[in-house]
């Protein structure tokens, strides 16, 4: 209550900012906005425009209307598998890797010994470059001297973990989860640390067991972290590119929308218009998710 009156009082004051304040605001808000328009939104809009054209990057640009989209949906065999793989990737990170990261954070947050050590080790993969991850996938999963096949003892008839189009997507999702889990865990750990311990104590006094305390008391206060983790999970899944590209250039079972875009834009054919059309599909899906999240955020902020 006192907060509300304070804010209202602030609004009533007509001269909230001095001239110097406005100069500071103008410069330090203007610069990042300008940069974001030039680097992100401008090019994104330009890509939408290009998706209705036919262009090889050098010659003239021809307006072709919705032809690119029609070709994409009807005549491009890699499109629907890529959509399916992207959705599977979202589901895997969201239903396996993210909850696993939360579980690890909760276990480590209980104040057990060596928690710093566990935390550091689990976070470690996040800081590795994808060149390293792709390389390690080959060391582990290769057919010749790969560790997994050696351990399984099937050198005579090795499983082609990275080449078999029924298996390789799962291996890639595992590799992606290897990095994703640690990231999620660190975010949740930060969130859990800021949960008021008195809340948990109060719940304990009221006779709640650990599980009840977590789901009824702790988890609801983690809402801001949940939103961030949700966004990161979906976006990482939609952006997945480097790992599959490092392994087999995103072919033979590893088709993803991001790979198809790259193939069409910087590949030999250089079909910029067509590649842009795929980019717009990915853009649409991404924006769909992010708008949902932001609307939820907005509602949450209003309720407060």
């Amino acid at each position, binding site marked *: 209550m006192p907060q509300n009156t304070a804010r209202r009082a602030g609004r009533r004051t007509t001269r909230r900012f001095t001239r110097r304040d406005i100069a*500071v605001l103008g410069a330090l808000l203007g610069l990042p906005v300008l940069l*974001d328009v030039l680097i992100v939104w401008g090019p994104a809009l330009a890509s939408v425009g290009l998706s209705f054209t036919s262009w090889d990057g050098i010659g003239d640009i021809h307006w072709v209307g919705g032809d690119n989209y029609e070709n994409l949906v009807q005549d491009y065999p890699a499109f629907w598998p890529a959509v399916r793989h992207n959705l599977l990737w979202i589901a895997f990170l969201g239903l396996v890797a993210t909850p696993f990261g939360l579980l690890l954070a909760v276990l480590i947050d209980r104040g057990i010994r060596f928690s710093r050590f566990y935390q550091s080790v689990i976070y470690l993969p996040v800081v590795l470059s994808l060149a390293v991850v792709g390389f390690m996938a080959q060391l582990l999963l290769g057919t010749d001297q790969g560790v997994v096949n050696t351990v399984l003892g099937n050198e005579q008839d090795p499983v082609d973990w990275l080449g078999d189009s029924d298996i390789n997507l799962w291996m890639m999702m595992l590799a992606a989860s290897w990095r994703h889990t640690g990231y999620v865990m660190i975010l949740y750990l930060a969130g859990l640390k800021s949960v008021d311990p008195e809340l948990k104590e109060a719940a304990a006094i009221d006779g709640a067991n650990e599980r009840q305390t977590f789901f009824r008391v702790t988890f609801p206060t983690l809402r*801001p972290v949940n939103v961030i983790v949700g966004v990161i999970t979906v976006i990482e899944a939609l952006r997945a590119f480097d790992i599959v590209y490092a392994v087999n250039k995103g072919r033979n079972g590893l088709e993803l929308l991001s790979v198809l875009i790259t193939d069409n834009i910087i590949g030999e054919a250089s079909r910029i218009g067509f590649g842009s059309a795929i980019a717009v599909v990915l853009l649409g899906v991404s924006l769909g998710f992010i708008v949902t999240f932001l609307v939820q955020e907005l509602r949450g902020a209003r309720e407060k």
Partner: protein
Amino acid sequence: MTADLKSTTRAGDVTPSLRGAAPRPRPRRGRYGVHLFLSAVCLAFVAPLLLAVYASLRPYEETARDGYFSWPDKLSFAYYREAYTASGMGKYFTNTLIIAVPAVLVTLFLAAFVAFAVSRLNIRGGLALLMFFTAGNLLPPQVLVTPLYVLFLKVDLPWWMSDSMTLYDSYWAVILVNIGFQVGFCVFVLSQFMRTLPKEILEAAVVDGAGVWTQFWRITLPLCRPALAALATLEFTWIYNDFLWALIFISNPDKLPITSSLNNLRGQFFTDYNLLAAGSVLVALPTILVFLLLQRHFIAGLTLGSSKG
């Protein structure tokens, strides 16, 4: 949210007395299980990395004969020396620093101010601004590549800024793209964080006549240290590990950052996995060190509990 927390703790008059009481004994039974589980997870997580280190210490002939999962005859650092000298890694490390350090600092500074304006000043259109930045960061990079490439080729720079005379093929291009792209993420995270800071501190400063800059630089930013440290770690890692932007916007191989040098190594010695392993470990080392060093600061900041005014 902070209001909720406070009212709860105030309502529970019992809590102060509990604070002094001895900590409640936790159930002993589950503890060994937890340690066992976490140790197993840790082992699984670190195994691939240890394997790469192990492979890098052994001659290729040996692993080619016995496989990577075998007992070593001979261990040496020879591959590290070879990987470092053969690909000229020192130069690429320098390039990475030239790109990543300014990119991280400027990103955090600009993002912190936007987040401050959006979440602390209640400026008009703040929410729209937040959405503008957040959504921008979530766009897939592939959507932006072609128009940016065309644009950067058209921007001329004086020779003392870029020896290519254009924005294309200069450090500026990669720095700018990284800042422009990452600011959105940092704005989102920092505004979330700043919303948990108590309003009263800022209100007190305003009463004392503090301007916007003072409210931002002297009052809000110091409270954000844990969040800034965490973000700096993440951002440095991402910019360090990124090779898409550098590959697209830099054509002179001498200007490439380190991650691309591993790409060169992969091309030159693609049959010798053990040399590649040594190169990979060298490339991975700086981000691991940065994390381990900043982690202390990060956790210290978090345990200070900046959300409690």
